[in-house]
């Protein structure tokens, strides 16, 4: 007997249809598994065999050939096992009802027949829905992430016996109820608030602009000046994730197996802080299975690189493509995968190897050549992609104990949201979402300068010895500052403020 069961595989963040064909013939009892499966797939046959027996079914003493079609695509992971078990049971006519043909089966089997959670359910469901499939059976442990998919009949099952009974219409299961994203996202709790950060007015303002326009930020300051603290507060003033964004983020986390299964969907913008010893592959993604790396996990969120120059040069250079395109393409012998990686980069660094260059209360012991070498670890092209440089310095003890109330993240966020809405309107029907990602034609259109502004800009360039690459960055930041104020035109004061965030282009570091 021959049976065909549908399942789904994963390639990058997209799913593809896999047909599990099971053929049962007489001969020496054996299971042949074909269709370019990896070790986990090859080992599935033993789990499937035990699970079928331990669920009270018969495992026929026959020769089975199981084919995973399409045969030319590599398949990974144990989530085809439920489909295989259904295939064997229907080939051996233990499932009589033909209803199973409409379903997509996803699940890993335990030897006792329990169905275990798998990675990547959300991306599979999204792909299946857009391919027009309606009915899916998934492990009950994965049900939370599936609840955000509407327009599909999704059933969550916990063991093989239950599944077969359901397919044979001996029992009924109710399909998963959908949940609304708004309910879940309201539960967001932000741990760090800007009201806990004393002083640092300039850095806070810079981060507000960065959040409003999606600009990358470099913070420069001596050790212990609160750079990391500021960065951690940053995700609290970013606009809330929209449902579409949340799905993208959840997809990537689901594939990487980093999803909180109880919550099911990620409602807060990711904040990733890879260590300075991180390897290039761990950042970009890759490995045998082309898993997403840190920069993809930071998609729609923040990538915080503390002590920026301490990362390997190679690693810093790999950030170029994602910072420009918002995607990263990982090419491996097996497959080439493109992951989204549109994040806000927050980098922090000391101004010199000892860290005290320019500090008020401590003396720098570095030679000028050392300082120069340290600063030049960050290459020009990377610098080119960071819009805002801001200096952070230690705050005095008096400031630390100052009782004055600092503005809280909530009210900063209100302003950020307003500015973001202006941008969303501006870039309607384009692929751009924020000022930071404006293309050159868009800049020409939206960053028009009055004659007065142009003259001021020219004057500023010659007086402050700004480099040419600063020009576009200044315009983009000025656009965001104008948006924060709700101004339609860029005014001189916006430009001047934007210029003040180009510290490293300036020559005073010599």
């Amino acid at each position: 007997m021959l049976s065909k069961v549908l399942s789904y595989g994963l390639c990058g963040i997209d799913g593809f249809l896999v047909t599990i064909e099971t053929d049962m013939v007489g001969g020496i009892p054996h299971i042949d598994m074909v269709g370019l499966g990896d070790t986990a797939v090859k080992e599935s046959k033993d789990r499937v065999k035990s699970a079928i027996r331990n669920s009270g079914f018969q495992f026929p003493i026959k020769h089975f050939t199981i084919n995973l079609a399409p045969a030319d695509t590599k398949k990974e992971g144990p989530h085809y096992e439920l489909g295989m078990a259904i295939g064997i049971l229907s080939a051996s006519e233990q499932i009589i009802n033909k209803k199973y043909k409409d379903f997509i089966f996803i699940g890993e089997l335990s030897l006792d027949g329990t169905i275990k959670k798998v990675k990547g359910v959300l991306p599979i469901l999204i792909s299946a829905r857009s391919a027009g499939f309606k009915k899916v059976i998934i492990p009950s442990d994965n049900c939370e992430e599936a609840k955000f998919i509407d327009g599909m009949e999704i059933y969550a099952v916990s063991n093989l016996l239950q599944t077969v009974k359901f397919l044979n219409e001996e029992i009924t299961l109710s399909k998963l109820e959908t949940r609304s994203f708004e309910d879940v996202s309201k539960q967001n709790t932000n741990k760090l608030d800007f009201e806990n950060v004393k002083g640092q007015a300039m850095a806070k303002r810079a981060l507000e602009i960065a959040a409003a326009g999606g600009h990358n930020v470099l913070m420069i300051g001596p050790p212990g000046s609160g750079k990391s603290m500021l960065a951690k507060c940053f995700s609290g003033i970013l606009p809330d994730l929209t449902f579409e964004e949340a799905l993208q983020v959840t997809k990537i986390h689901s594939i990487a197996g980093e999803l909180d299964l109880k919550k099911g969907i990620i409602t807060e913008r990711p904040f990733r802080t890879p260590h300075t010893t991180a390897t290039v592959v761990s950042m970009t993604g890759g490995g045998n299975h082309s898993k997403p790396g840190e920069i993809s996990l930071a998609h729609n969120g923040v990538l915080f690189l503390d002590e920026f120059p301490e990362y390997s040069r190679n690693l810093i250079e790999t950030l170029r493509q994602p910072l420009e395109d918002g995607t990263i393409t990982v090419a491996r012998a097996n497959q080439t995968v493109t992951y989204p990686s549109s994040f806000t980069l927050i980098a922090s660094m000391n101004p010199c190897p000892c860290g005290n260059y320019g500090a008020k209360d401590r003396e720098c012991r570095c030679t000028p050549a050392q300082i120069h070498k340290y600063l030049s670890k960050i290459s020009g092209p990377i610098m080119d992609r960071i819009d805002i440089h801001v200096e952070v310095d230690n705050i005095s003890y008096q400031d630390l104990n100052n009782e004055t109330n600092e503005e809280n993240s909530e009210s900063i966020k209100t302003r950020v949201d307003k500015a973001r809405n202006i941008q969303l309107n501006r870039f309607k029907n384009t692929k751009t979402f924020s000022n930071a990602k404006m293309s050159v034609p868009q800049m020409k259109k939206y960053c028009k300068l009055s004659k007065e502004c142009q003259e001021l800009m020219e004057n500023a360039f010659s007086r402050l010895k700004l480099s040419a690459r600063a020009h576009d960055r200044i315009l983009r930041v000025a656009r965001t500052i104008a948006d924060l104020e709700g101004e339609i035109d860029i005014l001189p004061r916006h430009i001047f403020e934007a210029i003040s965030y180009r510290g490293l282009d300036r020559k005073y570091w010599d």
Partner: protein
Amino acid sequence: MKEIEKLLVLFSICEIANKKQEIIAEQIGDLSVEQALNNKVILENLSTEEYQKVVKNYNKQSFDSMLNNMENSGIEIVTIFSDKYPKILKELDDRPLILYAKGDLSLCDQKCFAIVGTRSPTNYGRIITERFAKNLAQCGLVIVSGLCYGIDAIAHKATIDAGGKTIAVIASGFNNIYPASNTNLADEISEKGLILSEYPPSFKAKPYTFPRRNRIVAGLSDGILIPEAGLKSGTVYTKDYALDYGKDVFAVPGNIDSKTSELTNQLIRYGHAECTLSSDDIIDFYGLNKISKEKKMQLVSLDEQTIINLLENGQQDFDFLHENSKIPVNILNSCLTTMEIRGLIRKLPGKMFALI
């Protein structure tokens, strides 16, 4: 070019000591280079190794083409036998016999004044160097320095910004500017001022060439100003040369705890240097015409006036200005940038601001 001058170029390439050059140049008379190389004056005065080096380096054809190349890249060779040789250097007993120059040589004959100091200045040093250089340059002094990191570079830049003239004396050849990060500055100076070196273009700076360079800095100038320098600074040499040559030495007092003000404070204590509190002290000393105060005054807004008042007692950081001026961050930020563009204040590392 005279044959004797060619010989001096050859000597400078072979790193023959200045004193030996002087003796040979005095005695050799007008001989062609080939003849000179066989003359007993040279044989007597150079060691065997030095002589072999000179002979090995001399090949008439390649030597002439090298001279041509130098000329094409804008390098002028001035020897003690040339009319263009700076008169003020001629009187020194340790004068360089040969100078390579890029830029306007006539600057050497104007009133020159050196500003030298530490390579790693504090913000205090930065701001006073800039202020002094700017004011002195505007009074018509040619500012001389060594194109090094720190005070040197700031002095050069401030002079150029103020539209003044500057001379950089470097401790290396033109093709190996030290530090390399000042190469752009060097280009700018060669266009708008003058760069001098006693070393051939391909010469790389060596530890001993820096003090040697300092004697030219001191020699060219009527006086030297030390805004900030520590006891281990190379500025010590410049100061010693300046005192030897009978030049005026000015020093700006600094914080007694600051390592980078140890030299200046000591100079003042032992009376080796004039205690200098403002550029007017130097301007008065030389009897120069002061630029009128009114010219400095510019129209300022209310916010800008508040900031100026806050900065009157010295440099302050951004947070201090923010707290005490009560100006919102965004306005304050743009205000400070405008003021900097207009040359009222200067931004320093560590988000510090100071009046120029």
